[in-house]
């Protein structure tokens, strides 16, 4: 088999078209994972530009950089892109790339379904962005969707959203949602059925555990969103009345259905990042993860509770007080397993020989920033507090600390940690450290002042404001942080491009790590492992490197 691959003339003859064709028809989980991550990063840049346009508009009062409708389109596309076309594909992409390697398998359980899911995601995203061209419909009104990423009814009805922009939002997200669902099926089937000999569930790397739970959440939450979107589509296209108040249809039903999806979605976006931390922190602390079983239990607990907290997005709707109280309580409850995890990572670092390479820096940044986002989250679980601050910039600041300071920092940690495995080259450490500090500073300059403008009463999603509200300085600072963040992201992109050719050769195991993906070559061969490994503990490479002192079996 290897002689077939090693013929030099066939490699030399392989032109650009052949190589692109190879990527287009691939069913290899590693290539699909890389394509997920790269297309997610392209959408990340697009969404960043949309955010930049919004911040340009808000830099001073009564600015006219964007029209009101243009501003609405920007925040709708920014939110929708970040959640569905950046967060999910990048995280699922890491799952795709890593799960078979980590559990000692040669591919996913359903490789072709895997490729199908990727192309659904990509074309769903393309469909959403095609709305800039096709959203006008026959009415000549529209363009990109402008109804916000949670598309509240009745704003989405034919009356208020003319043209086809909202239909593009529905269909683009639905198609990429089908992609996510096929990926979730694959994750579950792969992790449950394809583990190598000895890889019991309690020896599974924690990243795989988190991805397993994420897959369950995708299977639970996304179909409900799909159902709600089908209802909206029936309303808009066939004249049904699900969300039509004139026929006693209910705007609140849309909110219930959307947030039943929407809140588990938050955990779909953060649990994989928890998984990255659970892999990276032990390796760079030179200690085994603290409280493995508790970590698994906390993940499962988070998943269960996350299905019962959605009404905290609806505290100002006017639902009965007992309902608000119930969901406030469940929201407090979910911070307990999340807190357990934070303490477990701190417990892992405690007394360890910590190496602050770039992946570990991003993990440490994650811990601090996510903690702030978590604490403002607990504040927002208090119903009277939310009554005051709902739909203000305080909320915007809160969820950016969770999703940028949390998820995106986790993604950058993962990129620096696994880039050597995917490419065979190390990312530049000096550039990486610069990028981390610049990004950390830029992030706080942008998002910390949002809490203050929010506390001063600035609502989210307004396209401009009057000069006498005391919001000017905070908006100015926020916008001034944007170029700092752009510089940080640009450094990472530049680092990824440059290191592809010039980076130090990584070798199989550059971080002296313990999970199975580091047991094969970098980049791994198409079949991952020449021999399917057999494991006897949760840290198979530790056992191999320290045969005199293997990990003790936990009963």
């Amino acid at each position, binding site marked *: 088999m290897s002689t077939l691959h090693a013929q030099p003339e066939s490699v030399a003859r392989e032109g650009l078209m052949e190589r692109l064709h190879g990527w287009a028809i691939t069913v290899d989980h590693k290539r699909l994972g890389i394509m997920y991550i790269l297309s997610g990063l392209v959408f990340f840049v697009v969404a960043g530009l949309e955010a930049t346009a919004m911040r340009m508009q808000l830099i001073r009062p009564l600015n006219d950089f964007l029209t009101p409708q243009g501003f609405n389109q920007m925040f709708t596309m920014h939110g929708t892109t970040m959640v569905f076309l950046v967060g999910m594909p990048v995280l699922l992409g890491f799952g795709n790339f890593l799960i078979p390697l980590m559990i000692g398998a*040669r591919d996913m*359980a*359903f490789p072709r379904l895997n490729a199908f899911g990727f192309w659904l995601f990509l074309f769903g995203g393309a469909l959403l962005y095609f709305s800039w061209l096709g959203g006008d419909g026959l009415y000549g009104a529209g363009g990109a969707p402008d109804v916000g990423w949670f598309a509240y009814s009745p704003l989405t009805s034919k009356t208020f959203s003319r043209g086809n922009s909202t239909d593009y939002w529905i269909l683009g997200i639905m198609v990429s949602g089908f992609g996510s*669902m096929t990926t*979730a*099926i694959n994750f*579950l*089937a*792969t992790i*449950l*059925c*394809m*583990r*190598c*000999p*000895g*890889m*019991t*569930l309690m020896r599974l790397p924690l990243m795989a555990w988190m991805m397993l739970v994420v897959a369950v959440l995708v*299977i*639970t*939450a*996304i*179909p*409900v969103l*799909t*159902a*709600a979107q*089908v*209802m909206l589509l*029936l309303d808009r296209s*066939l*004249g*049904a*009345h*699900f969300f039509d108040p*004139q*026929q*006693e*249809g*209910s705007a609140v*039903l849309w909110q*219930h*259905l959307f947030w039943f999806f929407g809140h588990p979605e938050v955990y779909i976006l953060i649990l994989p990042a928890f998984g990255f931390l659970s892999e990276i922190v032990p390796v760079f602390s030179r200690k085994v993860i603290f409280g493995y079983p508790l970590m698994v239990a906390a993940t499962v607990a988070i998943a269960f509770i996350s299905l019962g907290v959605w009404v905290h997005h609806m505290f100002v709707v006017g639902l009965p007080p007992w309902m608000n109280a119930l969901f406030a309580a469940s929201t407090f409850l979910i911070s307990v397993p999340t807190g357990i995890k934070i303490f477990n990572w701190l417990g892992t670092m405690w007394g360890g020989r910590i190496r602050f390479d770039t992946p570990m820096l991003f993990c440490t940044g994650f811990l601090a920033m996510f903690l702030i986002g978590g604490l403002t989250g607990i504040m927002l679980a208090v119903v009277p507090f939310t009554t005051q601050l709902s739909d203000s910039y305080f909320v915007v600041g809160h969820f950016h600390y969770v999703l940028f300071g949390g998820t995106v920092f986790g993604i950058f940690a993962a990129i620096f940690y696994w880039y050597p495995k995917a490419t065979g080259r190390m990312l530049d450490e000096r550039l990486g450290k610069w990028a981390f500090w610049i990004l950390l500073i830029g992030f706080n300059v942008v998002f910390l002042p949002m809490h203050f403008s929010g506390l001063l009463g600035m609502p989210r999603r307004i396209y401009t404001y009057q000069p006498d509200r005391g919001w000017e300085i905070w908006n100015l600072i926020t916008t001034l942080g944007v170029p700092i963040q752009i510089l940080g992201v640009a450094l990472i992109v530049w680092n990824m491009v440059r290191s592809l050719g010039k980076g130090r050769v990584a070798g199989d195991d550059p971080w002296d790590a313990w999970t199975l993906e580091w047991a094969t070559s970098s980049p791994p061969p198409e079949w991952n492992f020449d*021999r*399917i490994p057999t494991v006897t503990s949760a840290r198979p490479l530790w056992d191999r490197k320290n045969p005199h002192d293997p990990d003790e079996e936990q009963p």
Partner: protein
Amino acid sequence: MSLATAAPADSWRPGRGKVGMACLIAMESFFFAGFIIAYLFYIGKGATGPWPREVLEVKPVLVNSAALIASSFTVIASVKALGRGHLAAMRWWLVLTILLGAWFIWGTWVEWRGLIWEHGLTLRTNLFGTTFYSLVGFHAFHVIVGLLALSTILGLGVMGRLRPARDTLRFELVSWYWHFVDVVWVFVFTTVYIVGLRP
């Protein structure tokens, strides 16, 4: 070690086909849950008639439901026949299953014809029409997909392309989907024809 390793016995490892089909069924269940919740949410609401108790007839639907539920048992018999290698019996049980499923779809068509042309109820008429046709219609759509899958298997059986050792599990997985369509109908029936008609 060879490329194809036997499943090791140290830990529970279900078949990937079973896990995949179970996941699909779970996703479909949550999809239907959305429509069932919408139906329950809107019972008794709406600006104009016709109302469910004026136009829905339970008796013919009960007969159709019996046919669909019976088809779940005939498909079990068909899978078992394939497992034992009784290909002729498998085909006849499968023909019966498809006929029962087709009967159900025919029944839905008769019911809808009456509702649309006699009572003037469509998707656009009122909230009842909206929720009724979307819920019952999505279920009927799933029955049709199931019928297409079963017909494909029947076609393969008639062409003599089925091998019991290889295909029994595959057929069984398709039959899981058919059972799911059946179970969903129990929930839909309860929602629409019992809870929805309560005075």
